[in-house]
């Protein structure tokens, strides 16, 4: 069911302790900062978070980690020059890390949304990240079995939603949005604009509304989307 919600706080209110939460964004592009802040305020803890990184600076996901609300990170690139909150938790042994090659992360999320029980891929074959996993030689290449990543909730950012929850994104801010929307049981989207049903060209819809449960409009600062 699709709901249009007035505030980010109401949008995330149903997120329970122990949930697996996918958070869109690559760097700051496409990161749903306002939804993450609301998740921070709602108090949910013991979370497993799926994101490409593990928080940057003193905002968003980095603060959730700092406050000890994240039990486990599933990501491809936790270590950055400004990932000090994750680094501290990791060195203190207070957060679990599942490190996943970025393409496997994306494909495992996609697989979850597409009902695929797992897949073989050459990525990671012969490396420490394939240790303990089933392998096969397929077409002469070593391949590793990877399983889908499901989530209870996805928090993503898009540019516009129409009344049916159809989404369009903006430039490289699209990144994980479409695949996370499909992979989560409940997808919450923050958009800059809600437009009348019928005003998006159906040929250009990127995420069909069937994958979307909650839409909340947020005035996003810091991007040029208003002038585009």
């Amino acid at each position, binding site marked *: 069911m699709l709901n249009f919600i007035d505030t980010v706080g109401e949008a995330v209110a149903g997120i329970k302790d122990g949930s697996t939460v996918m958070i869109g964004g*690559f*760097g*700051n*592009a*496409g990161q749903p900062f306002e939804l993450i802040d609301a998740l921070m305020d709602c108090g949910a803890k013991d979370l497993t978070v799926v994101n*490409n990184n593990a928080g940057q600076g003193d905002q968003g996901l980095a603060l959730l980690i700092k406050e000890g609300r994240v039990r486990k990170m599933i990501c*491809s*690139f*936790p*270590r*950055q020059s400004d*990932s000090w909150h*994750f*680094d501290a938790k*990791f*060195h203190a042994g207070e957060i679990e*890390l599942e*490190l*996943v*090659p*970025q*393409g*496997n*992360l*994306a*494909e495992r*999320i*996609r697989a979850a949304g597409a009902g695929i029980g797992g897949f073989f*891929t*050459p*990525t*990671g*074959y*012969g*490396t*420490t*990240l394939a240790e303990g996993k089933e392998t096969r030689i397929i077409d002469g290449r*070593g391949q590793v079995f990877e399983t889908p990543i499901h989530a209870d909730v996805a928090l993503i950012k898009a540019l516009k939603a129409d009344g049916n929850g159809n989404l369009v*994104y*903006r*430039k*490289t*801010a*699209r*990144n*994980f*949005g*479409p*695949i996370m929307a499909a992979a989560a049981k409940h997808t919450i989207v923050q958009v800059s604009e809600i437009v009348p049903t019928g005003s998006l060209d159906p040929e250009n819809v*990127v995420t069909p509304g069937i994958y979307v449960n909650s839409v909340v409009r947020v005035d996003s600062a*810091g*991007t*040029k*989307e208003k002038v585009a």
Partner: protein
Amino acid sequence: MSTQTSLKTSEKPLGRDELAQLVARDIVPGSFVNLGIGQPTLVSNYLTEEQNITLHTENGMLGMGPAAEGDEIDGDLINAGKIPVTELPGASYFHHADSFAIMRGGHLDICVLGAFQVSATGDLANWHTGAPDAIPAVGGAMDLATGAKDVFVMMTLLTREGVSKLVEQCTYPLTGVGCVTRVYTDKAVFLTGPDGVTVRETFGCTFDEIQELVPLPLKAGA
């Protein structure tokens, strides 16, 4: 094979920009290319319009243009290094799984990556030093190494301690097995493959001097 007159030899080792220029010149016109973070990014400065190269950035774009400046800077338009970039006419955007399918499905012609070590058989180590207290971070390195048709490595031949990074077997954790096809270094260009390692050209030293530095048997090639 002590005297290899067929090898092109420049007077001096190549600097970072000269090396980037050489890699750029070697990219076949019309190729789809991904340039890794760091030194490989310099290659884009030397690609010519005539080459008609399309750059891929794994966060979700084909047709990436130069770094954005001033008013061009847009938080929604960044590259894999999270640097603001521009889009060229004919660019396209796609989600992360599609972007990695471009690599993983073998559609990308060339990727250029940095490396800690490359082995005689083209194994690549570039994501993790293996230090026990280091936080591992892999990003797209394994997908690029495994998926691109050709994997070019750009690195200095020697570590700061003077040890060859071209090795019989990698001691650092692997990124990919048998994936590297060429190694561009400040002192020589090496071609790697199932038949061993061939020196294509040298810079500021002779084939014999390169062989002294590298602990595996090298062949000389034109």
